[in-house]
């Protein structure tokens, strides 16, 4: 009652501020808070958006490289036709004539009337006669029975089917004429032109500038593989040895300081400068062969060493001193303590760092441009292991660059396809590194 009488005595003053109603200033501050948070969220979303765009454009533009347009014909060659064709002066021409007849028959059987000549077939298929002749000369038992041939179509057929070459934009040339498009349409509706998986892209070698359809990345994968062998064989032992010295033995003096400053600076030197080093020292000065995976491997080794040294030192540091003390306590020398106890315990971390360093080296392009790995047309696999190191070859990123720099737009598709393969390699390496880290990581 007392309370009530008191409150009734003095009329309640209108409060300036209620906890339930926000004043203008608080509203402003809260809005600012919300805005700030939204900025952060937007930034993350923009970053992820770019990642998605990148992934989508790689996949959308790269996947067509893995398929190719093929002309799928069932072809029967009788014994008599074979001997007759082999007896002619232009043997492959004779085979071509037979093929054309067969295609005409197939089209007529489906009720499609298209006029075409040998020239049209050559524009679509290149020179199919040679392939046919080779097959029958090698497999004479196939004579008389139907054989299904998948003949690679020219890149412009590909372009027409994917929309790169349109009927309106097409100008008659020796590569393709407007009448050929009718033939292509007919062949497509007769299921003779289909798409098939392009093994040649994965296993084959680079083709010349005039044949985008035949270009493959296989030879440069081999080149990259030999380069990575060099990098692994040199950078792992050298990197581990250097880290062991710096982490376990080095006294605090000027020489050690100099090495440490050098390593941290080398880690930040632009990769192209390593290319200049490779060109000046390995090629001009030592006369090692240009474009050889050996030279590429040496340059990339120098580039990866700082990465490997930094990660190896971190994993050596994470081995607790009690391990060393225990080893020293039972009479091991310092060297024995390090090599028998510390190093094995640090090995998972070292391997993880090495794999990540290798993955970086695998994707590096700029230094390879300078040692001549670009523009070199790797037309085949190296013959033998030693030749793999010393003979000119290309590497995956250099090959991609070569394709991207060519004038013919149909090579761009190959470049994207090459990127898919490169990224698959990188992804695999990184996943292995993550698994290694998860399985063997030890918390002390």
């Amino acid at each position, binding site marked *: 009652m007392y309370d009530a009488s008191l409150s009734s005595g003095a009329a309640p003053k209108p409060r300036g501020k209620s906890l339930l109603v926000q004043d203008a200033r608080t509203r402003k501050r809260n809005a600012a808070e919300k805005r700030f948070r939204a900025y952060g969220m937007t930034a993350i979303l923009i970053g992820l958006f770019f990642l998605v765009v990148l992934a989508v454009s790689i996949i959308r533009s790269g996947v067509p490289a893995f398929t190719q347009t093929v002309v799928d014909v069932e072809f029967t060659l009788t014994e008599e036709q074979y001997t007759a064709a082999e007896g002619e002066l232009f043997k492959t021409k004779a085979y071509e004539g037979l093929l054309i007849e067969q295609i005409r028959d197939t089209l007529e059987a489906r009720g499609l009337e298209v006029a075409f000549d040998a020239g049209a077939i050559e524009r679509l298929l290149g020179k199919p006669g040679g392939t046919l002749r080779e097959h029958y000369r090698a497999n004479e038992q196939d004579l008389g029975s139907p054989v299904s041939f998948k003949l690679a179509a020219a890149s412009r057929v590909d372009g027409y089917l994917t929309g790169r070459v349109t009927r309106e934009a097409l100008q008659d040339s020796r590569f393709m004429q407007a009448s050929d498009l009718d033939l292509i349409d007919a062949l497509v509706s007769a299921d003779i032109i289909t798409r098939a998986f392009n093994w040649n892209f994965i296993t084959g070698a680079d083709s010349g500038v005039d044949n985008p359809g035949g270009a493959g990345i296989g030879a440069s994968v081999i080149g990259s593989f030999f380069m990575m062998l060099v990098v692994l064989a040199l950078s792992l032992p050298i990197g581990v040895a250097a880290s062991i010295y710096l982490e376990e033995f080095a006294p605090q003096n000027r020489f050690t300081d100099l090495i440490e400053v050098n390593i941290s600076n080398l880690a930040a030197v632009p990769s192209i400068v390593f290319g*200049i080093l490779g060109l000046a020292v390995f090629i001009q000065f030592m006369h090692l062969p240009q474009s050889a995976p050996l030279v590429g491997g040496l340059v990339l080794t120098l580039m990866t060493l700082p990465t490997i040294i930094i990660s190896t030192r971190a994993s050596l540091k994470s081995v607790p001193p009690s391990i060393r003390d225990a080893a020293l306590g039972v009479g091991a020398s310092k060297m024995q303590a390090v090599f028998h106890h510390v190093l094995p315990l640090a090995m998972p971390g070292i391997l993880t760092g090495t794999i990540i360093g290798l993955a970086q080296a695998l994707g590096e392009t700029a230094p390879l441009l300078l040692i001549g790995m670009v523009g070199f047309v790797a037309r085949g696999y190296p013959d033998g292991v030693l030749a793999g190191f010393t003979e000119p070859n290309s590497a995956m990123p250099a090959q991609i660059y070569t394709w991207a720099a060519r004038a013919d737009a149909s090579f761009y598709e190959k470049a994207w396809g090459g990127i898919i393969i490169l990224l698959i390699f990188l992804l695999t390496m990184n996943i292995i590194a993550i698994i290694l880290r998860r399985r063997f990581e030890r918390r002390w």
Partner: protein
Amino acid sequence: MPILWLFLIVSGIAIAGYYLGLARVMRSAGGDRRHMHSLPSYYGGNVAIKAAVPALLLMLVWLLVQPMIVNNSVSALIPDSAIADASSRGLVLSEVRRAADGMDRALAQGTMDASMANDPQADPDDVTSRLQDAGAIVTSQITQPVLNAAQSYRMQNQRGNQFMSGVVIVLALLGALWGLRGAQADFRARNVVESAVKMLLIGAASIAILTTLGIVLSLVFNTIEFFRLYPASDFFFGTNWAPSFSGRGGSSDLGVLPLLWGTFYISLVALAVAIPIGLFAAVYLSEYASNSVRSVAKPLLEVLAGIPTIVYGLFALLTVGPLLVSVFGRDGLGIMQAGTAVITAGLVMGVMLIPFVSSLSDDIINAVPQAMRDGSYGLGATKSETIRQVILPAALPGIVGAILLAASRAIGETMIVVLGAGAAARLSLNPFDAMTTVTAKIVSQLTGDADFASPEALVAFALGMTLFVITLALNVFALYIVRKYREQYD
């Protein structure tokens, strides 16, 4: 492959020495290892190290030095008159090397016999046709001086290789004997082996110094050579970049300013993209995001840093460029001529740099002590006010360091600008113009069949030197800032 064989022989000697050493020390200790100073394997290792290390080192040095000596003596054989006007000594020498390799090939295939390969009076035309039969790549007709030089080149290399094999094997055997003499029970093998291993470790660590030395020397010597042919003041202050393509014409304008401007402009655009996005992402990740969001978003953003730059280059050339042209080009606003432009390269490079800025800044923001946040909240500040007025100022030196590192990365970036920025060197303010950078010009001047003695090729080394100095200065400055202000809040 004689070098491989030599390597295998030396390794064989070392392995044999290892077991001989073991056997000998066992005999000397009377078959009881308790009488030895060290474990038996150290005695074996002592022999193996003494056999292999000096021999292999000698082989390495020999392989480096021999080509230089041979090249010099062969170069002296070629009279000036044998060098055509359009050619140079370097080109003739590589022709000599090709001819010599071709002779080896022809000998192996039997299209040429040994007496002909060594006969100085041999008919050059005949030799050329035989080499071409053997599939050797000889660009043109071999002349008499080239033939003689090639023969002398082969001869010297052969003799050198034979001599090297002999000396290396003898050295390996001597080393093994020296080690075997020490295989006595009271010899302190462990100490000797361990100090040798330590020397190897020091050698491995010194490779970092050697690499830096190699970079600096190869840049400095070639840059000096360049400045002898082309005045330094014209290089540093020239505003026109127009190398002549005729090969050895003296009419090139090689001013670095347009290239530097292109480099800085593109880097500026890239940083303008990367800094806001990266910083806000870092702030959000470290201050707002829940653990689950953080554990997904952070690795995903870092994927952007792991993608090879060639992928970004292609992305700029084939995706971003055409997209920008369709908006700003002739069909759109009409201010962009082609897909390759400053804005294209800058934008893509900015995307690449986002994780550099965000990851480093994230670590730095996390390192700001929690007490500072709590103090600010206690005074009634909101989260964003705390971040803006307390955390960011505290983390500023680190963030500046991160940005400087990103800038140095942007300046040294090659593939994106080679593919995305165009090739025209110009001083312009329009971001929709094509411009070029220092790195892109290093690539274009050093690829192809350039003659390394011409100023047009040597300029690339001067450009490399400029690039090296700028990035080094940025890195050192960044590290200095980070180190100087790092401990302030600990």
